[in-house]
């Protein structure tokens, strides 16, 4: 850790990196509506400069040192709160990702937003968001982090509600804001606890705390993370937030803002006590499974991606809770690229469909995947990008997703140990996600790109300005661009030569097999059905159907063979076999309807009941909230006094 | 305390009888007619007869009314006003409840009045009553501001909230300070021993005359008198919040209204027009002021005080009646805009002038 002066260091450059997006945000005040076309150009130019300077920040000097620059902010009760930059590998890589994706989204938005009103407002808000996100990533102090954290939430609120004339968008924005506020409250309480036990809010000084209150502080901070990263109880704002413009979804709700929570967890990971980590891993595991399951049953292309994001974020948080923080962070960087690519690809589809439907009279929901199909031939570039990014999401080999997933899984296997414990449950959750992710990815691609085109119209590929950013992101999903520091390179090598430990290669193979099975199941499941039939929930029927049909076919083949061979002798046997076959079929169907169905229904009922139980406390009644708050206060005072 | 009760309550009843008669007569003369002439000599007993009639009438309770509140509301209107009389200094030696923030108390009491009106209107369960109530409350609350500001101007001058002390300052009984003509000591005209109208507050600081005009307008509005009698505008709202009242309860409401008139007139006289001080000044050896004040401790001292105070007050009441029969009723928007756009800014300006006057001269 070196403490250096301001001018002789990358801090000046960092300050410029921070202030240029703010300048871009301020531009919105000065550009008149008449010359609105200026705004995208200027903002994108500023963002390009920002990106170049951030690259200079990243590659100046040694990557693996931690550099801090602070100045005093204010003094309260003899304790000084500072304000400053903290540049270490984690924040540097985040700076790179944020500026790059922000730049790409700016470029993409030039194409995407041309026909919409409020261009100036849109780009100034993008600038504000980038500023807030960079500030969040660079800040050296938890209080400053909190300020930017709130600012990020605020600009997200404004961007989701960009089309505020739509009541749904306005509601979604309000919902996101309010749920984020709930999390902020937790964060704030956590900060207060830290302030009282640690006497300083410097991130670097938080590691040396030893106090019984640490668990409470960790949980409070984690509540903030829950809301920001859309984790289990507080995740339902994210699918709604898809009402915002698609580039915004790519920037905020896939790559950066929702990653802020994960980033914060990694930042202050040393302070989490084991109890905290248990909670984190459980919440992460449940979120990842719920999110993946949710993605399977959605029909809106953006909502599928939103649930997928929830699932992936849960995966990262589970990884952090289960001792695979490095893998989690790597996955965060990788996820930023391929999910942004997916979102922008989806945006291209929506944009193209929208353009094509401008002249037609019948209103269709262009985001509904049941209305899409056969786009493979009409939008080849988007198709390729989608395939690459989806491959990364599913964790296919030679993509970034494979790399990080395999790292997480191997670390988690070590963590889970050989003896059976609750940790195995978490691990099985991870495997279930590994299985479910290719499945819904396959479903999405199959519905959108294969099959017959649903519309006879003049669909054309999107303009170049929108193609290039998506292609760059796709490139990021197969090359190892975000893997910039040394340990990440090491993990790339370990992909080729699994030498880290013995389980390593086995896990790679196992995960590959899982993915392949998932793809197979998906292929069988989604190819066979008519694409526009409504599929309620993904049950275990697929296996049973598969089983049934192959068994019966094989039997029939055998019986016909036997019939030609000897009718007389084997007749009865064949009859018996047929009867047996029917009986087995009945038994299977009985088991299917009674045991499997009921198990599935039971799970859903219990989940519903449990949800109702927890929801009854959060009943939206302000007086009840007040009541429980005072109850908490009374208990707290009793605790303190007696 | 008890003595005041025995003095004020009969005074109030007697005064009401007189003033109702006076009001009829004055309005009749202003409209060039005779007014009541039948009962008694020159119609003198007309009001007494009316009063007897009112007391005999049936006590009607509307079926849909909130009975308890309906019954109690007239008292809620009357009691706060009657409470206000308890702190008035009636003569140099007689103030029933002498306490140092009496003026403040009076303001509070005046604002309490509105509660009774609201209860009366609500309990009647009648649209007209409700509208009258809303108007009345809006009026009383908005006119409290110019009223308070004008009272504040006097406080700036006399540096006290004690009514007795304010009164003492305005005459020859003043002890520990000197009065100058128009409050300007640089002139060198010492009026401490001259007394009379020269030392009344409006003469000690001539700006206060304009303040008094504001006070007078605001007090008209506070007591729901014309031209601000919108809450009970007979031609629009039947009788406003008192529509459903009749008989003795209505009589109590009317008593409260006339008592309010008297109370605000008392306050105006005490604050601006010399309180119980004589208007006649000492001129050389011709010590009119000393003669019409009486020597401290004697009976005449009390009697002169009460005489001057009550006569000046009744004169102000007559002024109110005069105004009532001269001006037409204002509209609601005129009423509120008069208060907020005219009286309040002017009162603030006058307050600043008064402060500067007191500070600089």
């Amino acid at each position, binding site marked *: 850790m070196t403490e250096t002066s301001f001018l002789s260091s990358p801090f000046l450059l960092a300050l410029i990196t921070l202030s240029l997006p703010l300048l871009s945000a301020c531009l919105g005040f000065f550009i008149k509506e008449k010359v609105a076309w200026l705004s995208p150009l200027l903002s994108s130019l500023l963002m390009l400069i920002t990106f170049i300077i951030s690259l200079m920040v990243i590659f100046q000097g040694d990557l693996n040192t931690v550099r801090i620059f602070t100045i005093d902010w204010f003094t309260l009760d003899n304790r000084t709160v500072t304000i400053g930059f903290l540049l270490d590998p984690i924040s540097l890589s985040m700076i790179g990702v944020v500026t790059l994706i922000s730049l790409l989204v700016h470029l993409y938005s030039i194409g995407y937003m041309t026909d919409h009103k409020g261009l100036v407002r849109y780009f100034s808000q993008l600038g504000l968001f980038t500023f807030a996100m960079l500030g969040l990533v660079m800040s050296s102090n938890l209080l400053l982090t909190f300020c930017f954290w709130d600012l990020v939430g605020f600009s997200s609120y404004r961007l989701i509600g960009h089309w505020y004339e739509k009541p749904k968008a306005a509601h979604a924005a309000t919902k996101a804001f309010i749920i984020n506020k709930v999390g902020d409250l937790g964060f704030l309480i956590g900060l207060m606890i830290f302030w009282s036990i640690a006497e300083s809010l410097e991130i670097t000084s938080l590691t040396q705390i030893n106090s019984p209150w640490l668990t409470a502080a960790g949980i409070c901070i984690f509540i903030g993370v829950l809301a920001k990263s859309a984790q289990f109880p507080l995740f339902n704002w994210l699918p709604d937030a898809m009402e915002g413009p698609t580039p915004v979804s790519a920037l905020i709700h896939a790559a950066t803002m929702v990653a802020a929570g994960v980033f914060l967890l990694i930042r202050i990971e040393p302070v989490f006590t084991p109890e905290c980590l248990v909670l984190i891993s459980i919440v992460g595991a449940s979120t990842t499974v719920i999110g993946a399951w949710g993605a399977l049953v959605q029909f809106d292309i953006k909502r599928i991606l939103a649930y997928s994001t929830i699932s992936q974020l849960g995966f990262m948080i589970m990884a952090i809770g289960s001792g695979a923080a490095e893998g989690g962070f790597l996955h965060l960087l990788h996820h930023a690229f391929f999910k942004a690519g997916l979102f922008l690809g989806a945006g291209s589809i929506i944009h193209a469909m929208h353009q094509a439907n401008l002249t037609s009279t019948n209103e269709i929901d262009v985001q509904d995947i049941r209305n899409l199909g056969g786009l493979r031939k009409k939008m080849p570039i988007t198709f390729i990008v989608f395939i690459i990014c989806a491959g990364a999401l599913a964790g296919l080999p030679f993509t970034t997703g494979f790399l990080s997933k395999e790292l997480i899984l191997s670390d988690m296997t070590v963590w889970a140990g050989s003896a059976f414990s609750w940790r195995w449950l978490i691990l099985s959750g991870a495997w279930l996600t590994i299985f479910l992710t290719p499945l819904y990815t396959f479903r999405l691609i199959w519905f959108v790109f294969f099959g017959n085109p649903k519309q006879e119209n003049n669909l054309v590929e999107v303009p170049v300005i929108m193609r290039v950013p998506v292609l760059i992101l796709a490139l990021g999903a197969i090359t190892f661009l975000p893997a910039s520091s040394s340990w990440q390179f090491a993990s790339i090598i370990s992909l080729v030569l699994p030498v880290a430990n013995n389980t390593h290669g086995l896990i790679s193979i196992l995960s590959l097999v899982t993915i392949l099975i998932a793809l197979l199941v998906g292929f069988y499941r989604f190819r066979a059905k008519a694409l526009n039939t409504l599929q309620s929930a993904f049950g275990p029927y697929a296996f049973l159907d598969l089983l049934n049909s192959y068994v019966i076919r094989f039997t029939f083949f055998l019986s016909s063979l036997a019939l030609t061979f000897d009718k007389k002798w084997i007749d009865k046997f064949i009859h018996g076999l047929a009867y047996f076959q029917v009986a087995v079929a009945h038994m299977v169907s009985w088991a299917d309807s009674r045991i499997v169905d009921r198990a599935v229904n039971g799970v859903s009922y219990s989940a519903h009941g449990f949800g109702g139980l927890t929801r009854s406390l959060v009943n939206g009644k302000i007086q009840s909230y007040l009541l429980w708050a005072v109850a908490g206060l009374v208990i707290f005072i009793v605790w303190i*006094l007696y | 305390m008890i003595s005041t009760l025995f003095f004020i309550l009969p005074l109030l009843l007697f005064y009401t009888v007189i003033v109702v008669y006076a009001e009829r007569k004055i309005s009749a003369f202003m409209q060039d007619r005779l007014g009541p002439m039948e009962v008694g000599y020159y119609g003198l007993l007309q009001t007494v007869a009316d009063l007897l009639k009112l007391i005999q009438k049936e006590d009607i309770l509307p079926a849909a009314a909130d009975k308890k509140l309906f019954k109690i509301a007239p008292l809620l209107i009357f009691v706060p006003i009657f409470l206000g009389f308890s702190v008035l200094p009636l003569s140099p030696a007689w103030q029933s409840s002498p306490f140092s923030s009496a003026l403040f108390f009076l303001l509070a009491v005046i604002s309490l009045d509105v509660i009774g009106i609201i209860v009366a209107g*609500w309990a009647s369960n009648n*649209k007209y009553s*409700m509208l009258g109530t809303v108007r009345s409350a809006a009026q009383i609350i908005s006119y409290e501001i110019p009223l308070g500001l004008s009272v504040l101007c006097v406080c700036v001058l006399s540096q006290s909230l004690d009514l007795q002390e304010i009164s003492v300052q305005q005459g020859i009984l003043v002890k520990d300070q000197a009065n100058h003509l128009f409050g300007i000591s640089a002139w060198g005209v010492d009026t401490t021993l001259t007394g009379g109208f020269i030392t009344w507050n409006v003469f000690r600081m001539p700006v206060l005359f304009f303040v008094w005009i504001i006070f007078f307008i605001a007090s008209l509005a506070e007591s729901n008198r014309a031209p601000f009698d919108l809450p009970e505008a007979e031609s629009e709202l039947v009788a406003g919040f008192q529509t459903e009242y009749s008989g003795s309860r209505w009589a109590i409401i009317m008593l409260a209204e006339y008592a309010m008139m008297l109370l605000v007139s008392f306050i105006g006289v005490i604050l601006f027009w010399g309180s119980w001080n004589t208007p006649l000044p000492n001129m050389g050896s011709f010590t009119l002021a000393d003669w019409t004040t009486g020597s401290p401790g004697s009976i005449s001292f009390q009697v002169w005080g009460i005489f001057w105070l009550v006569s000046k007050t009744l004169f102000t009441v007559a002024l109110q009646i005069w105004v009532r029969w001269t001006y037409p009723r204002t509209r609601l928007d005129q009423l509120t805009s008069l208060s907020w756009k005219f009286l309040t800014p002017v009162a603030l300006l006058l307050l600043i002038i008064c402060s500067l006057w007191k500070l600089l001269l």
Partner: protein
Amino acid sequence: MQEFVLYLFIVASVVSILIIILNRNVFYAALALLVCLISLAGIYALLNAEFLAITQLLIYVGGVMVLIIFGIMLTNRISGKPLYVKSQNWIAGISISVGLCAMIVYAYTPMTLQTSSANTAENHIQQIGKELMSTYAAPFELSGILLLVCLVGAALTASSFKKNTHG
């Protein structure tokens, strides 16, 4: 005599609060609150805080109560049926309130009040005025700003100067 009046006020305030809690008619509750506030003003006056007592009368009773009653009248559609209020959370609310009450009473050590000589001085008002203009000048001015902001804010909030299109 003074003791007796004090107890009278205490009883009045307790009874009026019970009326607020048990009554379902909002208007009655507001009137009961009025009684409670007046009783409290009386208690203040008996505790040598006459300025505060009158302020309580003037501001609370003359101002806040009128506002509240106005609120009741305007949220009730003029001359509609009496506004009845439902209640909820009785058990939890009572248990928490009583718990808090018991806790406060438990934490309280009984004490006896001795009136200090300074406090019985006659002219409170001048004392208060001097304090307001010297020691408490800053909060006094700030509260003036607060009042102004509130006035403007309340007027803006309550007025419907623009027709709302959101519906």
